[in-house]
């Protein structure tokens, strides 16, 4: 078992915190997680794809179309999609539409608190290029510069059938092993954090909220 070289481990600065909060948060940088047993990975990906728990955070307009998805008419449960009340218990984060700067801070905190494996589905055209609020002083234009996105579903707003098609595509991507958003986030943590800190002016959080 090879131990990581101490010089390679850079500590997180956590300079948004003041004493005594600095004592409560971890300083070691997160590391990307690879598959434990490569041979079993196909079975594990199949299991992950069929048990998606969507976090209960309605960030924007798109949350209105998530509600009909969980009813009997569109029935997302037969695809293995359920709801989950907290970030720690969920694995899919559906970002429903535009994200204002205040919500972006909460999105980042919720995303980092989710446990691996985690996937992000971005709904609507506001996540792609800012949508109709492209020139607004309070909404961000491209969500994938702040957190890693696995799948976009475009529309304004996307119909529940479009959402279901998006989830089906997400499952295919998971089974093919291509949904490595969490690892991408950790590998490029400095770039993501620089983007976030540029927009979120009152940074009073640790650098990684695990």
């Amino acid at each position: 078992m090879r131990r990581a070289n101490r010089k390679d481990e850079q500590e997180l600065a956590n300079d948004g915190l003041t004493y005594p909060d600095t004592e409560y948060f971890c300083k070691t940088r997160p590391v990307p997680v690879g598959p434990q047993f490569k041979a079993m990975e196909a079975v594990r990906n199949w299991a992950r794809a069929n048990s998606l728990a969507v976090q209960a955070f309605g960030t924007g307009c798109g949350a209105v179309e998530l509600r009909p998805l969980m009813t009997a008419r569109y029935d997302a449960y037969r695809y293995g999609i359920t709801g989950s009340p907290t970030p720690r218990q969920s694995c899919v984060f559906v970002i429903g539409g535009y994200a204002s700067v205040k919500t972006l801070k909460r999105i980042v905190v919720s995303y980092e608190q989710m446990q691996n494996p985690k996937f992000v589905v971005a709904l609507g055209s506001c996540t792609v290029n800012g949508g109709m609020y492209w020139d607004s002083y309070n909404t961000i234009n491209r969500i994938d510069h702040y957190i890693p996105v696995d799948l976009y579903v475009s529309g304004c707003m996307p119909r529940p059938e479009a959402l279901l098609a998006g989830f089906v595509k997400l499952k295919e991507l998971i089974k093919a092993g291509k949904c490595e958003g969490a690892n991408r986030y950790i590998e490029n943590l400095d770039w993501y954090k620089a983007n976030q800190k540029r927009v979120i002016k009152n940074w009073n959080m640790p650098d990684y909220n695990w």
Partner: protein
Amino acid sequence: MFERSSDRSRYPEVVDGKPVVDLDSEKYVKIWHGPQHPGITGNMSLELILCGDEVVDCKTHVGYLHRGFEKLMERRTWIQNFPVVCRIAVPEPAFNEYLYAAGVEELAGIQVPERAQWIRNLNLEMMRLASFLAWLGGQAGAFGNSTIGQWTVTHRDYLLDLFEEMTGGRIYHMYMVPGGVRSGLPDGFEERLEAVLKKVEKLLKEIELVLLNNSVFKARAVGLGYIDKDMIDRYGITGPNQRACGIKRDVRKDCPYLVYDQLDFEVITGTASDTYERTLVRYQEMHQCIDLCRQIVGRMPKDGPFHQPLPNVLHWRIPPGETYVKAECTRGEKGYYLVSDGSLYPRRICIRGPSYTHAFPVMEKLAIGTDIADIAGLMVSLHTYPPEIER
């Protein structure tokens, strides 16, 4: 329901309506009933200070959905604002379209044809019904009864199908242009509407048995969130919240707009202004919506133009002036204040959402003294939608 101890010596004293709380003494816990929560009516949060199970202080925080609409609308021409406007109040967009169109028509002096008025009114009443259905699911779900949410959201979906037939979109219709509506009703629409209304009526009968006669709902909702009569004008409370106190005011009756002066309906009031009474008033208003939809379909003129031709909208200058138009949406009085200075762009558009007063001063006052488990139910019973607070 358990009884609260009448010995208030262990609770903080109240000075000027606000409790004096010392957070460093380890009697109190501050939690965020926050933006990531299954029990709120949208993306807003409450900062609660608890003493045991009882809320002693509450602060509302909004701003999570602030897009700067009023600033964006000053940058777009009058016709470019028309698709933007419906996204201000996300679960109930049709009222925004109607009010913007009505304001522009009043400033520009455009006459709307008769049939267009009736179609607009039908769209608004269907929108009220859909919004009430979604609300009812939320109110029951806040007290733990999530079956009703499944029923009502499905029936709302039937209404959204009808909207899609009529306008082309399920949620955001972009249908009421200044000058009329964008298209007439499709063939056979009235029969399909009647079929859906029958389904909704049958559902409401079942909901009356399951929810309004439910002993758990009655035990939890009666006495929760009592609004005093002298709070109404002091806080600017409108809509069913105010009518449940016994005050008979309704914008549709007092300042009739569209074709409401040709329809027969009564203003529904209640007496005990708690959560149960508000639920009852809204339930009766749902029946009223169904009745109004049937009246409108019966009395609508069968043919006629549905749109007044507009001047070249790319170079459309509205004469200078200002106006305020209002409508009765599910939550209360919604109004648009438009100021024009004669140029291609609006000077100022201010949106008066009813949730502005319901979510802030009223919620902060009513939350003090309630149980933490009932806060979600209280918030949903005031029927606040965060997007229209912060636009």
